């Protein structure tokens, strides 16, 4: 049990690191997926070890997968827009608005 949760925590941290540091926007999207997956692992692990009745955890995880997919699709659409506007998807491009 603990190991699953620890695995999830590590995965989450790595994903977090990716989101925070990648300069490639798609890289950020991928790191986000890692974070969602960490949550999924948590849900499923809890479902197996703690919550004996029902499959809420798994179902939740499934919805998360679906939402993540939807977000990924939309995110990639926006990435395309970025590419069209700047001819590149480096995060350094889009920090015009500040302060």
């Amino acid at each position, binding site marked *: 049990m603990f190991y699953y949760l620890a695995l999830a925590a590590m995965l989450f941290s790595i994903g977090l690191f990716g989101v925070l540091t990648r300069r490639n926007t798609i890289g950020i999207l991928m790191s*986000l997926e890692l974070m*969602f997956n960490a949550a999924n692992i948590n849900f499923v692990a*809890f479902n197996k070890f703690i919550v004996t009745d029902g499959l*809420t955890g798994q179902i939740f995880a499934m919805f998360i997968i679906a*939402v993540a997919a939807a*977000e990924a699709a939309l995110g990639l659409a*926006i990435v395309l827009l970025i590419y069209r506007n700047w001819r590149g998807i480096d995060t350094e491009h*889009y920090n015009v*608005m500040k302060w």
Partner: protein
Amino acid sequence: MDFPFPEYNLQYMLPEIFLFVWALVVISFDLLSKRNNGSTTGYLTLFGIAIAGLLLGLVGNGKGFGKMFINDNVAVFFKVIFLGAAFMAVGSSFGVMQKKIVNHRGEFYALLLMSTTGMMFLSSSQELLSIYLGLELTTIPLFAMAAFYKDDKLSVESGIKYFIIGAFSSALMVYGMSFLYGLTGSTDLAQMKVAFFKTHLQFGDMGIVMILALIMLAAGIGFKLALPPFHQWAPDVYEGAPTPVAAFLSVGSKGAGLIAFAKIFVDGLYAYHSPDMAPNDWGMLIGILAIAAMVLGNVLAIRQTNIKRMLAYSSIAQAGYIMIGMVALSASGIASVGFYLFIYLFANMGAFAAVAVFEDMTGSCQIKSYAGLARTSPFFSAVMAVFLLSLAGIPPLAGFLAKYYVFASVVDVAQRSADSSWMYWMVGIGLLTTVFALFYYANVIKVMFFSPETSPYKVEAPLPAKAVLAIGVIGVLLFGLYPEPILQFATGISSSLHFMP
């Protein structure tokens, strides 16, 4: 294991269903009419929202899909606000539609309607999963709408920023939710509440992870509320996004965050902070966030030159004021939150609508472009001034009453409970920041009215925008002088949430 089919009771979710269907209708109409139908799509959307409002008035309180959907006082109250926000956002979007979003009107309105559906669904949810889905359904269309000026770098930038931060915080939230699930064994808020009362979940070994979970959740919802320290996206997004979207964000998204917050933290986890835990601990955390919001929002707004950005910071600050009502954790506190949001709807949507109108005409969002506007468009300037003064909380406009109610509910709690002197400090700081707030609100008024030169522009608003402005002004004035119905309505909220009086 048997699986009884729950009673669907679809009638209770008629407005949501209608709205979703209407979104499809709108997009189909737009596609079929070759996209050259003038403003018809917009009017169609307005009509749909009005119908949904009507339906909302017709359906009563009740449950559907077992525990998944519940139409209670809170839900109805917030749904009214969401529909209102949608209505006013659509109303102020006609100019944008004419000029900038020519080809995707149907999509735009459909997304807006779907986002509204998400918000309404959220208001009716009683369970973590549906809260999560509701929040996502609220946000995902907004990601797209923020980036809707596809050739405008600022808009795209705001879209991607909104997207990254939104997805990031939703990841945080989900991760937090998973712990909550693990700790309580349920995603149902009511069951969670029961679980907290179980002895092994008292402040002991569970407490620490609980805190982690709650913080994750708070980050997710704080993002929606644009509550510091989760606020930084807001100014950038507001500035870049199409103005009606920013307007919708400022009220709709905020309302969604609020209802989620209320459901999880105030209602669902009420047990968590009431019996043995130091009672002020939790409230104090919200209080600190609220103070941070008020101070940051108001202070940062002062130096802004772009009016949308300024309004963004102002809305951060307003979130702080709203959260003060939450800190009270009392019936009147939650009622004051509702009332505040209701008034905020009129004032803020009105202000954004005015900004949108002006932007459509001049293409500028700079405050200095408003110089001397009072001479050429006195009526418009006066309306704008009314909105800003209401946001600043100057009586007899409704904004003042909202602030008064919020602060009153905190003082009420503060003087009743021992060891709550920090609440007075919070009230003090909050009120103090209203003075700073006046500084930038008045600045816009100053630019419009005091400037010696005459503006080259004469504002001509399209009819729906005029209607939105009128609704805003009437709301702000009327509910400032005769707030009783809304107050009653808002007081009704607390009967649905589980408070000690």
